[in-house]
């Protein structure tokens, strides 16, 4: 549906510009549609695994790689700080914005900070590792937990 694409683009462009999640009213204003139609699009985009919503069905928790809430994974691009959902997504922010940036996170065991420069060729050389304790087939059983 056209409104689904319009809503998706409005959400992602809002994150890219403002670094934070938009409200349904803000999205409705951009796409020139009633809020109820925006919420309908949200539900369909959730089914397609494009958005993750809070229980109210109206608040965006994730528009991967962007996070609607504060996390330990932060990407700085064009001087703006973006929260990402996880270690994978924090590299996804400069990839999505197609711009160089700096990624900040930490070692989950020791707490040692990670700072990593990222450009179009990828992150600078690093021997840090990524680990996911949920097998790929079950990632979307509970994507927030994953």
């Amino acid at each position, binding site marked *: 549906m056209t409104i689904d694409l319009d809503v998706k683009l409005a959400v992602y462009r809002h994150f890219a510009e403002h670094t934070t999640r938009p409200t349904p009213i803000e999205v409705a204003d951009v796409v020139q549609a009633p809020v109820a139609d925006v919420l309908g699009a949200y539900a369909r985009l959730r089914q397609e695994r494009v958005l993750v919503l809070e229980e109210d069905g109206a608040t965006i928790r994730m528009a991967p790689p962007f996070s609607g809430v504060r996390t330990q994974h932060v990407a700085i691009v064009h001087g703006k700080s973006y929260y990402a959902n996880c270690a994978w997504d924090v590299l996804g922010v400069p*990839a999505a914005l197609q711009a160089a940036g700096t990624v900040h996170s930490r070692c989950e065991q020791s707490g040692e900070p990670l700072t990593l420069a990222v450009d179009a060729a990828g992150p600078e050389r690093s021997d840090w590792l990524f680990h996911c304790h949920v097998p790929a087939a079950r990632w979307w059983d509970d994507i927030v937990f994953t």
Partner: protein
Amino acid sequence: MLFFRSEEMARQWCVEHDYPLRPLVRMDQLWGLARSWYATRLQADARRPPPTEIVRIFAGLGLRGDFWNLGG
């Protein structure tokens, strides 16, 4: 989905949280995943890769085995 300074740090974390140690992913492999998923995300024609393509992406990055199998 977390970062660890070393395999030993990941191993310790898994023991403390009672999770099995899963395959560890290098930073260059993670960049490949991030690009594959998100490089076109802000574009109108962006789409999530379907399962068959996801498996090919994993394999192309050297991520093979049961952990990376999407099943069904």
